[in-house]
């Protein structure tokens, strides 16, 4: 009976399954189909060609690494815009490179004390901005430092003697750059004077490259001409661009970050005593030379400046490094710029506005 009972039960169970089998099967198939379709849709959406993505290209220009990043929904459009921005930087390099034999700056330098030289719009703009920075830093930033800079060789650890520096300093004076805006000409008053735009041209190039990207239809991007960075728009995730500020005590470690700051439609530059330097007799000789003494400025280790224009962040970072922290913060406050100065003792001096925005990775006193 038990066995019979079992058979009956088993049949009952089988009957229960058999009746809705086709229904169950089709339900399962439908469910599988639905889930697969959902998965495919989700995957297709995440890889959609219309989704905005980040595109980046690097090139060596202006004797440094230039990285351009753009947000775009098309790889072709992004590359076209980036290439146009690189071409703009290349054009500016040809105008402003004083080592090149045929640049406009070389022609001005060659004709110093002789005759005025006709120049393009960009050189006039660059010199106008350079003079503005010189006037606001009491001459701590001076593009006529060329003859003094030429005396140093930081790779070969060569520093000129004091007599030579003193003699050459007489050729340094930004007030002796004569600009005629009507005729678009520039004259250096005395023979031997040299313009070196190394302290402003990279920041200006970042501005112009960003302008070019915008003209090409790019709504968001980042131009980094070495450490002179111009950021505009937002990233695809809706966040501002995050910039790391190098730790001045990191030695050769370029990726050692001291702090980060988020930027949108702003530029940032940093000048530090770790960029080109050598140590002799326990003293650090670096490339940020004081136009008053011809020697490396000693009050700061690094200066970061934030404002709208890259030309100003670049040049003021140099000028304020030379001015020193106390005067530097006053100048920044007066101009409404943001900045962070790390002095020779490692102490940080911050403008009011930057305090809320900067995020330190390590303790700074």
């Amino acid at each position, binding site marked *: 009976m038990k066995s019979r009972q079992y058979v009956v039960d088993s049949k009952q169970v089988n009957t229960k399954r058999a009746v809705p089998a086709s229904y*169950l099967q089709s339900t*399962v198939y439908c469910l599988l189909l639905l889930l697969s379709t959902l998965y495919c849709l989700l995957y297709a959406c995440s890889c959609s060609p219309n989704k905005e993505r980040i595109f980046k290209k690097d090139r060596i220009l202006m004797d440094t690494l230039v990285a351009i990043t753009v947000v775009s929904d098309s790889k072709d459009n992004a590359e076209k815009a980036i290439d146009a921005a690189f071409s703009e930087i290349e054009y500016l390099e040809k105008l402003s490179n004083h080592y090149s034999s045929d640049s406009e700056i070389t022609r001005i330098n060659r004709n110093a004390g002789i005759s005025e030289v006709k120049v393009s719009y960009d050189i006039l703009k660059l010199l106008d901005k350079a003079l503005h920075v010189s006037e606001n830093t009491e001459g701590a930033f001076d593009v006529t430092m060329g003859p003094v800079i030429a005396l140093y060789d930081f790779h070969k650890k060569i520093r000129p003697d004091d007599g030579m520096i003193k003699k050459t300093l007489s050729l340094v004076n930004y007030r002796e750059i004569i600009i005629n805006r009507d005729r678009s000409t520039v004259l250096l008053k005395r023979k031997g004077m040299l313009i070196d735009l190394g302290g402003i041209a990279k920041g200006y190039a970042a501005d112009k490259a960003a302008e070019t990207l915008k003209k090409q239809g790019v709504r968001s991007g980042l131009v980094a001409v070495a450490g002179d960075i111009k950021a505009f728009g937002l990233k695809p995730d809706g966040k501002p661009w995050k910039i790391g500020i190098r730790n001045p005590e990191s030695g050769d470690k370029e990726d050692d970050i001291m702090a980060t700051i988020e930027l949108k439609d702003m530029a940032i530059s940093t000048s530090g005593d770790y960029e080109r330097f050598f140590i002799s007799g326990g003293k650090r000789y670096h490339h940020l030379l004081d136009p008053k003494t011809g020697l490396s400025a000693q009050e700061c280790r690094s200066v970061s400046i934030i404002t709208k224009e890259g030309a100003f962040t670049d040049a003021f970072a140099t000028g304020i490094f030379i001015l020193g922290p106390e005067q530097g913060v006053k100048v920044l406050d007066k101009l409404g710029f943001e900045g962070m100065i790390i002095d020779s003792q490692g102490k940080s001096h911050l403008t009011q506005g930057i305090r809320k925005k900067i995020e330190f990775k390590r303790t700074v006193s």
Partner: protein
Amino acid sequence: MSLRELFHNTTLADRILFSLLIVLSLSGIAFIKEILSDNSTVHIYVDGHPAYILPLDKNRVVSVEGPQGKTVVEIKDHQVRIIESPCHNKLCIQTGWVRSGAVVCLPNRVVVTLGDPDKHKKTIDATTG
């Protein structure tokens, strides 16, 4: 037990669970591929043009020809360095091993970057200083 019998012995819940597991596994593969592919490549450019894209997890030594001559790049233990360069100052060699960012030889126009420039999962977009 044949596959057909196995299928007939499963309940509706079994089949739903099975299909869900398949979907989850496939999603997991796509997710991991997207997340982990970021910092695993070394890009070597000469004069702006890509010369090599290499995995960071395979030790090797490669050389590229720049305008001044041969630059030799070594990849080892997820790090990269330049070991030979025709440039006069050898700053690229002095940079030593790097785990992120880039090693650059300006005179020979060689740029070695870590990570895929198209994928920006990293937190910092650029560095000043």
